[in-house]
């Protein structure tokens, strides 16, 4: 009965979304304030309906209601409760519902917290969100219904894909989706601004916090995903340039560019058209990326099986959303007031440089991801683009980005000089060169460059803070008290840069990793990175009804002293006839030690891969710092008290120029 209610709530949510779109988009022309006030209420109502619907699907999973096809296919009686819940969104139809739920949440949040936004703009934003929502809800209701019923129900479910039985899966998709879908708000603001024909400083101020929220989630989501593949796949890699990873990285790159360009809109009323385009592009990339992977057009290990008919439906939705907004952009953007000019050496100049590099990196990733299907289409060649391409094409673009990252925040607005900024960084530069020289002498060219870059960015961010509190120029006590008057947004920016630097340090450390692949018999050992790794024995490990496990006991010693015992496992999932490797990972936040149990041979030998990854934990620590930085900047006073009232400048009428 409950799944039926869930289905009903889903249909009701669709109806509300249609009403929200109509009222939001056409209401502002009616000049009836009462109509406009309905938009936020509808947005909240749509969220409540979808939340109820989603709860019903989760409930069906929890009680193992096999009359629901989705549950029967992706759950089983041996599946633990946690994975019965997470299994709800571990499949195509369920994850689509989660996707729609988060989209409705975005609308609801704008409805509740968007009081400072002018009523008509807010109604239009909600209208755009409602329209997108209605499209995807129609998809969910018609061709990808998570509530399809089975009768008679099967006795046992098919079970969750073993590789997805992981706590990481519980948090990863919802966080990542919130990141993706959150950009819909910036997108809606951009489209609403195009409809109104006006972008000003206040627009930049409204768009930025929403963009930062979703950017935080996307950063955290990408981090979790990378961490998940790092410890679940046990191969000691953290980024594989898989299409799924790339389509998450693309909106992250353009979203990061948008966060920066919106500052310029807010402070200098420049880069307006560009920011609108970035907002549209970021959400479009989120959308098309997810769905291209879904539709099976890109080759990926993560692809859900989707029928071509669903693919076509999605394509039509994408054409309407992406194509429609870009068409609106092509028609309306030329009449947006052109931006003012400014000096290349200035804060805004540095922010533009940031945008240029971020978008070029995005273009590289985009090309690499889209190249294989399109070359196949045009020339009938089947090929794949792998890590070597990305490493060689993106690295030359990341390097200047890193160099500029420490300098930019030290430049003043409007007109700045480059020398004073560089003077403030001389000590940092010296440190970086020192690191470069030391590591270079040890023969790691790439690691040396990356380490020096990481040090440069991290210390550069600290210098920025030091400048703000006038460290060493006023007494220390005064500097300390100044710490409390630095705006939170500045702290956020500093942490964002610092976190990026820490991630770069981690990636650099990974480049110096050492490992050994070896076959050991009990009692034998191998030396790696100053440790002695000895296999004591291989034993059966406690399994669960879902899998049986074999476990190796590895004794790790240093200088004859016992350091720790590592227990890597191999798990055999009986229902799916698959084996997964569960690496034993120990970390002290400065380096990771990995033991992977790769297999046993008949002679009693067992095959292992031991890795030592210096600085690897910093990759994700940096991501966490970045996301936290975004969170801190959101608490800035400027965002809490809301934007100042908007100047009532007359709307530039497009009619005269439309015929041009």
């Amino acid at each position, binding site marked *: 009965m409950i799944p039926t209610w869930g289905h009903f709530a889903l249909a009701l949510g669709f109806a509300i979304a249609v009403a929200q779109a109509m009222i939001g988009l056409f209401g502002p022309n009616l000049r009836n304030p009462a109509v406009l006030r309905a938009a936020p209420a509808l947005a909240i109502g749509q969220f409540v309906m979808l939340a109820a619907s989603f709860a019903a699907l989760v409930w069906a999973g929890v009680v193992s209601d096999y009359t629901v096809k989705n549950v029967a296919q992706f759950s089983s009686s041996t599946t633990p409760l946690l994975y019965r819940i997470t299994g709800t969104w571990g499949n195509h139809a369920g994850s689509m519902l989660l996707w729609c739920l988060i989209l409705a949440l975005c609308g609801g949040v704008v409805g509740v917290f968007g009081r400072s936004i002018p009523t008509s703009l807010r109604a239009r934003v909600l209208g755009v969100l409602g329209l997108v929502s209605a499209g995807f809800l129609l998809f969910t209701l018609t061709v990808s219904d998570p509530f399809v019923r089975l009768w008679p129900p099967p006795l046992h479910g098919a079970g969750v894909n073993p590789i997805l039985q992981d706590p990481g899966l519980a948090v990863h998709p919802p966080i990542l989706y919130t990141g993706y879908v959150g950009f819909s708000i910036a997108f809606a603001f951009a489209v609403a601004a195009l409809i109104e024909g006006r972008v000003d400083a206040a627009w930049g101020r409204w768009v930025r916090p929403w963009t930062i929220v979703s950017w935080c989630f996307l950063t955290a989501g990408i981090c979790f995903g990378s961490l998940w593949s790092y410890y679940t796949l046990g191969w000691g890699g953290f980024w594989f340039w898989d299409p799924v990873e790339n389509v998450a990285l693309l909106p992250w790159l353009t979203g990061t560019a948008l966060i920066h360009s919106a500052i310029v809109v807010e402070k200098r009323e420049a880069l307006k058209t560009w920011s609108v385009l970035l907002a549209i*592009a970021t959400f479009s990339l989120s959308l098309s990326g997810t769905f291209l992977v879904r539709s099976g057009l890109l080759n990926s290990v993560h692809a859900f099986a989707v029928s071509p008919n669903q693919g076509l439906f999605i394509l039509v939705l*994408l054409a309407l959303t*992406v194509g429609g907004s870009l068409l609106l952009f092509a028609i309306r953007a030329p009449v947006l007031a052109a931006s003012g000019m400014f000096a290349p050496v200035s804060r805004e100049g540095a922010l533009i440089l940031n945008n240029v590099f971020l978008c070029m990196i995005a273009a590289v990733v985009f090309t690499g991801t889209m190249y294989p299907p399109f070359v196949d289409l045009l020339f009938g060649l089947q090929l794949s683009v792998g890590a070597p391409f990305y490493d060689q094409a993106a690295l030359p673009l990341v390097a200047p980005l890193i160099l500029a990252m420490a300098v930019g925040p030290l430049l003043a607005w409007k007109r700045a000089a480059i020398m004073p900024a560089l003077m403030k960084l001389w000590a940092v530069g010296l440190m970086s060169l020192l690191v470069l020289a030391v590591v270079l002498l040890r023969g790691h060219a790439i690691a040396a460059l990356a380490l020096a870059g990481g040090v440069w960015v991290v210390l550069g961010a600290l210098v920025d803070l030091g400048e703000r509190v006038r460290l060493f120029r006023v007494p220390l006590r005064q500097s300390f008290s100044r710490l409390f008057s630095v705006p939170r947004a500045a702290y956020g920016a500093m942490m964002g840069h610092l976190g990026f630097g820490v991630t770069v340090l981690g990636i650099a450390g990974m480049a110096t990793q050492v490992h050994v692949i070896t076959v050991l018999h009990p009692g034998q050992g191998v030396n790696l990175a100053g440790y002695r790794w000895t296999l004591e024995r291989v034993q059966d490990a406690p399994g669960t009804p879902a899998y049986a496990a074999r476990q190796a006991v590895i004794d790790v010693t240093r200088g004859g002293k016992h350091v720790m015992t590592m227990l890597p496992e191999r798990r055999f999932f009986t229902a799916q006839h698959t084996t997964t490797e569960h690496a034993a990972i120990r970390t002290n936040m400065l380096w990771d030690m990995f033991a992977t149990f790769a297999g046993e041979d008949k002679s009693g030998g067992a095959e292992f*891969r031991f890795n030592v990854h210096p600085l690897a934990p910093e990759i994700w620590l940096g991501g966490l710092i970045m996301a936290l930085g975004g969170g801190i900047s959101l608490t800035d006073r400027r965002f809490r008290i809301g934007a100042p009232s908007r100047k009532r400048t007359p709307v530039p009428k497009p009619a005269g120029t439309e015929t041009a």
Partner: protein
Amino acid sequence: MDRSLLSRRLLLAAPLGLAVAGGVGAYALIERAKRGTYNPQDFNNPLVGHRVPHFALSGLPGQQGFDRDALVAMRRPVLVNFFASWCVPCVQESPFLDRLAKAGLDIWGVAYQDKPEATALYLAEHGNPYRRLAMDPTGRTAINWGLYGVPESFLIAPGGLVRWHVASPLFPDVIETQLEPALRKIT
């Protein structure tokens, strides 16, 4: 008509053009997927049916590598195997490569993005099935060959034509169902 406004309009319509092109392409791909003529999960290498591309790689220090001409000059089929010392599936594949080598197949190895000492150690530990060995430290040759990952193997017919390719370890089932039929076709 104001020229600058026109060019501005064209510039601002460019994203739309890009999106439309992308959409049309995606539509064509979906249509082909429906007819079953497009499957991205297939790792068909573009080289299959073509001559091997130009390359010249050195070997381990003090040993000779090989280049395209050596490969093309061969009178017997050659299995070119890309591997690396840091790759676990390569280790799992190695006993089967040994068996193939003992059965008389010419196997030439390319060590992909590997250090010479690591490769030497790897071969000492897991056996060396390779008649000839070349090092591809930069991975340039691997890009030209359209490598997806390691291990990957290419069957080269006399004259340098790539006849067959697999992007997975050469486990017995792959050897039996794919490699051996392909070999029979050549000889």
